[in-house]
């Protein structure tokens, strides 16, 4: 029974990684670059939600507000920072996003009321427990699990079936050719940064009851990144599966392996996956084969 409980909490922790990894995958799918500021966008989203709640808004109203606020910030980010380097090698974009992450952390510490303190975000469901056959799961985890699955399903359908979603993937493979197919590449880039920042905000606000709101909470992105790699970077279901695998391995190694393994388990796993199957579990090339 204990193993099962450990696995369950691993899964719920893993879906948190998966939720953040969705943001990585979104940007990658649409622009074939990696946004290393994803964790920081999540942190900003959490602070926006926190501020809304502090001003007396109910939690469920703060969530869409944070989503909308970060959507705008994402679009601004694309417009101001990323559009000028459109067409540069992916490496340039990676460096710029790392820089954006640093700036975001710096700016947050300067904002009165945000600063370097740790804040608690009161959620209506905080502390409630769901019991089933001797297993216990916190309500805040259930919410994350539900949100993650709903979001990834919606995004999967979006990329698979909609004109805009398909056009985004085309533009990520070849911007020049996409223009000639009548695809407004710039508008789509801006849209995907909005969506991705919005998803990050949802992750941040939903995570807040579990991890608290703090300027360095974005570092959880360092665990979400291996989740995306294991899943195969461009795959939305892969991000979830990768997240769950990392979460479960982490919590199992925390209980059954010597001290310290918990923190490096994720990276060991990434190394193994990269050696065995470099494209990740749901790697693009594999899934697109005939």
């Amino acid at each position, binding site marked *: 029974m204990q193993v099962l409980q450990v696995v369950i909490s691993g899964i719920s922790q893993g879906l948190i990684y998966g939720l953040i990894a969705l943001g990585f995958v979104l940007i990658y799918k649409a622009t074939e670059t990696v946004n290393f500021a994803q964790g920081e966008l999540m942190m900003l989203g959490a602070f926006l939600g926190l501020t809304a709640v502090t001003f007396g808004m109910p939690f469920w109203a703060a969530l869409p507000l944070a989503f909308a606020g970060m959507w705008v910030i994402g679009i601004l980010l694309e417009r101001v920072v990323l559009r000028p380097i459109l067409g540069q090698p992916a490496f340039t974009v990676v460096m710029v996003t790392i820089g954006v992450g640093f700036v975001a952390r710096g700016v947050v510490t300067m904002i009165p009321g945000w600063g370097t303190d740790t804040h608690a975000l009161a959620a209506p469901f905080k502390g409630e427990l769901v019991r089933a056959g001797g297993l216990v799961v916190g309500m805040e985890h259930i919410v994350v699990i539900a949100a993650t699955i709903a979001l990834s399903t919606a995004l999967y359908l979006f990329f698979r079936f909609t004109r805009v979603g*398909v*056009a985004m993937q085309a533009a990520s493979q*070849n911007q020049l*050719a996409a223009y000639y*197919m009548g695809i407004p590449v710039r508008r789509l880039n801006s849209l995907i940064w909005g969506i991705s920042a919005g998803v990050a905000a949802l992750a941040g606000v939903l995570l807040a009851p579990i991890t608290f709101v703090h300027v360095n909470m974005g570092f959880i992105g360092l665990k979400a990144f291996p989740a995306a790699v294991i899943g195969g970077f461009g795959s939305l279901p892969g991000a979830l599966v990768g997240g769950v695998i990392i979460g479960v391995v982490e919590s199992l190694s925390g209980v059954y392996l010597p001290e310290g393994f918990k923190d490096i388990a994720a990276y060991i796993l990434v190394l193994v996956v990269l050696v065995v199957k470099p494209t990740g579990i749901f790697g693009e090339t594999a899934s697109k084969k005939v």
Partner: protein
Amino acid sequence: MSAPMLKVEHLSVAFGGVKAVSDVSFEVRPGEVFTLIGPNGAGKTTIFNAISLIVPATGRISYEGRDLAGLAPHQVAKLGIARTFQNIELFEHATVLQNLLIGRHVHRRTNLAAELLFLPSARREEHEFREAVEKVIDFLDLAHYRDQMVAGLPYGVRKVVELARALSTEPRLLLLDEPSSGLNVEETDDMAFWIHDIQNDLGITVLMVEHDMGLVSRVSTRVLALNQGETIAEGTPAEVQSHPAVVEAYLGTAEAT
């Protein structure tokens, strides 16, 4: 004579201090194959890029009487202009079929909700697109490669896939940038037939840049010769090829003799 389909007037493009194209004017008439020739660096591809609005140019370009100035690059496709590239620009990590279906993007009419729920309207459109694309596949003999990833295909086939994708947009004007470059004799032969069929059977007007003089003479209605960004001759393929300025541009001056 019918009104010109594409009209380029006093087109100039400069990159820094270098004039890539200076004061070039020409007209492409409906139904013809109009070819730009000239040595490397003559500005042929730059003219294509200017028509596609991806390099800033001065002068006037109008298509079916409409000035292209002020349009965004992605809007050019909606007007019915398609293009292939000298160095092949395909969606590499997608199948041939997926590449061609993207070509139908400009013709999509359904909205987000219909697409997500796969409503009858979306389903019907999907069928129409597939039919249109299958016609192109038949036309260019690509059935064998339909479901293969582009990244793994030989160069000659990729060249044809690019042409197929351009045709999938159902253009009225097709810009071909060196359709025969990198092709062997047999493949070039096929290309000549296809260009001929595109002009005659599909009724698409073609503006082409080409180096292979054999191909140029076989398919072109009219030819414009450029050298260092300037027009040096215009006329039928035979007229242009025997024009002294063209001979000089290609072979150098006759000083030595």
